[in-house]
């Protein structure tokens, strides 16, 4: 799978990431790091525990990473859940989490193929 294909599949912006990181090797390296990041887990944990603060921070971090990586689709859902959590609404957050999870899984699966 090429990097361009990967970005198309996960709903990301290939041009943006290329202008930022310049080389495909770098993009691959960063993609690998993305899979190691614990923010998604922390988000899920936070919501399950009812810990709004933790969840908010995790969502916010994830949003930031998606921005940096130009994962546009996942960025949008992360952004939305961040705002929900900022408003302290755990219940709405639980619902949004489903969307986030779906987008996240697509990205992870994509990276798996990219780095295979």
């Amino acid at each position, binding site marked *: 799978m090429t990097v361009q294909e990967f970005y198309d599949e996960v709903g990301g912006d290939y041009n*943006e990431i290329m*202008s*930022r*990181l310049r080389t495909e090797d*770098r993009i691959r*390296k*960063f993609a690998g*790091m*993305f899979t*190691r*990041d614990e*923010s998604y887990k922390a988000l899920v944990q936070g919501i399950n525990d009812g810990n709004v603060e933790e969840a908010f*921070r995790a969502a*916010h*971090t994830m*949003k*930031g*990473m998606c*921005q*940096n*990586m*130009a994962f546009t689709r996942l960025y949008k859902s992360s952004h939305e859940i961040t705002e929900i959590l900022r408003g302290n609404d755990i219940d709405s957050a639980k619902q949004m989490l489903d969307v986030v999870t779906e987008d996240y899984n697509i990205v992870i699966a994509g990276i798996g193929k990219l780095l295979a």
Partner: protein
Amino acid sequence: METMEKDMILIADDAEINREMIKFIFDEQYHIIEAEDGVQAITAIAEYSDRLCLLFLDLLMPKKSGLDVLQFMNDEDYINTIPVIMITGEATDETDEKAYEYGASDIIYKPFAPNVVMRRAKNIMELFEHRIYLEQKLEKRTRQLRESREKIERSNEFLVNALSSVVEFRSLESGEHIQRVKYFTKLFLKYIMKIYPKYEITKEQAALIVNASALHDIGKIAIPDSILLKPGKLTEEEFEEMKKHTVYGCELLEKFKQEDNEFYRYCYDICRYHHERHDGNGYPDRLEGDAIPIWAQIVSVVDVYDALVSKRVYKDPFAVEEAARMILEGECGVFSPEMIDCFTMAEQELFAATEGEFSFADVMVK
């Protein structure tokens, strides 16, 4: 000793990806250290403060936030030596305000363009370096100036002492009269500053007055030996001439005057007025009461005291208590109530000084 080579950049962010995004921009030219949370950041800053030339700080971090780290930098004064660039996904005015308030140099929003980050970082680092360099230069200059000034002050003091000693050699009085007058003047000033703040004498002024007191009798150079060294009582004519040493002293000083500054004022006033009396019966101008500058009043009393307790060509020394009594009871000149007060307060110290440190053959030993 110039500063150590500053070659380190600290990147503090809880997500590895975010740190990497910045790291790759700089890692060829700089040594990068990373922190995952506020606590690690603080530890790193403390440890590497003299090598850090830049700090990238995320606002939201576990354990301690970016603002907490900024607070720490303010408390320990690192904020003035290490520039901080905040990186954040937040774009609220509130957090911006806060970050700048706490001393951040710049704020960069995610996602950022690496080139822009590099340029801004370089600009900021250069600015800081330049400012620190200027501050160091300024500090050095200030120190040099102060040292020069101190040197000049010491020269002046030496010259004043030398000048006044010339008089002493001629009048064959104790070689230390000048030193004692200076010492007693200093003592008196101490009490004046304590008891009479109304005269508003500062420590700097006091130092100048003490130096000026050394020249009080410089006019005696112009008095002929026949009068200056006469062992017996002076005739009326001779006394009139002797009194003129006040005025002669002023004429001399005017010749040497470089500018009308504070020190010159003190020298002139002391020279001219140290024989005036509180009741207006003194000389040369018959000034009365508070018209007599306080510094002249002090030297006046001190001069009389020293004359009483020292041997002169025309008399033997008195005992310290006797000298004090004569002054307090107005037998030797008339002084203001403030001077009398101060004299009383300073008495014990005066006696101790007279009989101890500055005791010489011509001062009567009890």
